[in-house]
């Protein structure tokens, strides 16, 4: 009996050791995978392309907002500073009173100008992380100064600016500084260590995950809607004269197409999070997204929203085709090891 018992104990210990070893190995692998995913070496080109196109688009978008500054943010406008805390519920107020900085009309206007300068210099690669963080802060000032007029591009722009505030890719896709004799143009200066910083990888991954979250929530919420389920939601959008200027009656003669697009949008958004990661199908998934957002942007008069969504796809584009596209292969920026 004792022999059998000893053997059983030894077997159990051996099994336990095997299990413990396996668990320890899995934990080490998981840690290594986490580290590689969030902080591993990445070519800065996709993030730099994202920075360049998003920065320029945001600069134009907020320059247009500035044309109606006094109505949106002025003391004679729709929400004077004194009224703000009366109308905004306490649960939506931030513990950081960003909006206070724009309580004075002239200071606010100057800060809006600074926001535009920050976005432009960030886009052109003349400034880095600190200016991006400053631009993010100024962006939040105006988001909080008048929350009644916020719409899609503002919300998406907030997420992208936050990601850019973590990164520094100013030596990739850098515009020549005016007056610099030795300016090397778009081919950039020699890469610095900051270009392959773990912060850049972190920013890239956060932008990717954020995009997935946006689509998952968009898709799941649409599944709850009756018109998306029926398949005529796209018609309900295209027939809305408040959004669409052109007459798209002809689409009523192909109801199958309306249902196909409606269902396609819902399924694509919901499963984007799973479909976008395999490299083999990624180009098709992103191409569908580009076509979808171009369609939305052109028909529904929300080009900036579409642009802000499409530019974030740069974070999913491998660096090599981007460098090939820009004619930069082997000439600027660090390559992947």
């Amino acid at each position, binding site marked *: 009996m004792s022999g059998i018992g000893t053997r059983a104990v030894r077997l159990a210990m051996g099994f336990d050791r095997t299990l413990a070893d396996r668990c320890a190995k899995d934990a080490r692998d998981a840690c290594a995978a986490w580290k590689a995913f969030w*902080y591993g070496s990445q070519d800065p080109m996709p993030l730099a392309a994202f920075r360049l196109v998003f920065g320029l688009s945001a600069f134009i978008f907020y320059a247009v907002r500035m044309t109606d500054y006094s109505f949106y943010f002025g003391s004679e406008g729709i*929400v004077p500073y004194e009224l703000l805390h009366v109308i905004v519920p306490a649960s939506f107020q*931030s513990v950081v009173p960003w909006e206070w900085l724009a309580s004075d009309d002239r200071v606010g206007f100057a800060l809006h100008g600074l926001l535009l300068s920050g976005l432009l210099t960030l886009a052109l690669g003349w400034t880095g992380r600190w200016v991006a963080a400053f631009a993010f802060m100024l962006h*939040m000032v105006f988001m909080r100064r008048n929350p*009644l007029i916020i719409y899609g591009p503002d919300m998406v722009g*907030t997420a992208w600016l936050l990601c850019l505030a973590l990164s520094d890719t100013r030596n990739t896709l850098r515009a020549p500084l005016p007056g610099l004799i030795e300016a090397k143009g778009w081919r950039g200066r020699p890469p610095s260590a900051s270009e392959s910083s773990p912060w850049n990888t972190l920013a890239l991954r956060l932008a990717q995950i954020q995009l997935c979250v946006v689509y998952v*929530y*968009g898709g799941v919420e649409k599944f709850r809607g009756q018109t998306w389920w029926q398949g*005529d939601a796209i018609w309900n*959008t295209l027939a809305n004269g408040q959004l669409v200027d052109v007459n798209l009656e002809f689409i009523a003669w192909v109801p199958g197409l309306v249902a196909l697009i409606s269902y396609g949008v819902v399924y694509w958004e919901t499963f984007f999070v799973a479909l976008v990661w395999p490299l083999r199908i990624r180009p098709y998934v992103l191409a569908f997204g580009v076509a979808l957002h171009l369609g939305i942007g052109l028909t529904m008069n929300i080009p900036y929203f579409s642009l802000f969504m499409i530019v974030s796809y740069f974070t999913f584009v491998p660096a090599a085709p981007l460098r090939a596209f820009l004619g930069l292969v082997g000439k600027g920026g660090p390559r992947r090891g």
Partner: protein
Amino acid sequence: MTPARRTLRPLARIAVNGLLVFHLLVMALVPNQQLYVPQEIAVPMIAYANILGMNVAWKFFAPDPAPPIYYEFEVTLPPRPGEKEPRRERMHLPALRNDEFWRQNYNRRVALKNTVLQHPKLISQVVVPRMVCTRFPEARDVAVTRIGVRFPSLKEIREGRGLNDMEDRRTYTLLSHEVCLTEGKP
């Protein structure tokens, strides 16, 4: 030559990873405004989301695309010299047709209308005093009406009804009568 990578120190790595996990939780959970989360956890998450502008539900065109709705403000003005009848003027939020040079400015007024739909108190707090009364400083009475526009279904279009023939598809709901307390001021 690949440049040297900067690496984080162990303590910084733990702090960054902890913050990253928290950030990811906020990113993933805060958009679901119906989710039950214990108060002790929800408070710091919502505070963090409010600071960084992450309290967004990401419900674009969901659960259903919103129907076109306008607010109409019919303003009663004193009669002109020599006339007996008070004058009436109308303005809409947003305008029935885009009247802004930059489309974004019209879209922001649509966004304002959407916010007002969710928080009707804003009509008397913001829209009437800050938009209507300032445009019509002599206004005595402001009748606020909500206009809903029902557009034809796919089937109705195929039966020959025009998309732009919207006059007979408007429903008017009188919401309230507001007053401009002093000339041009709330």
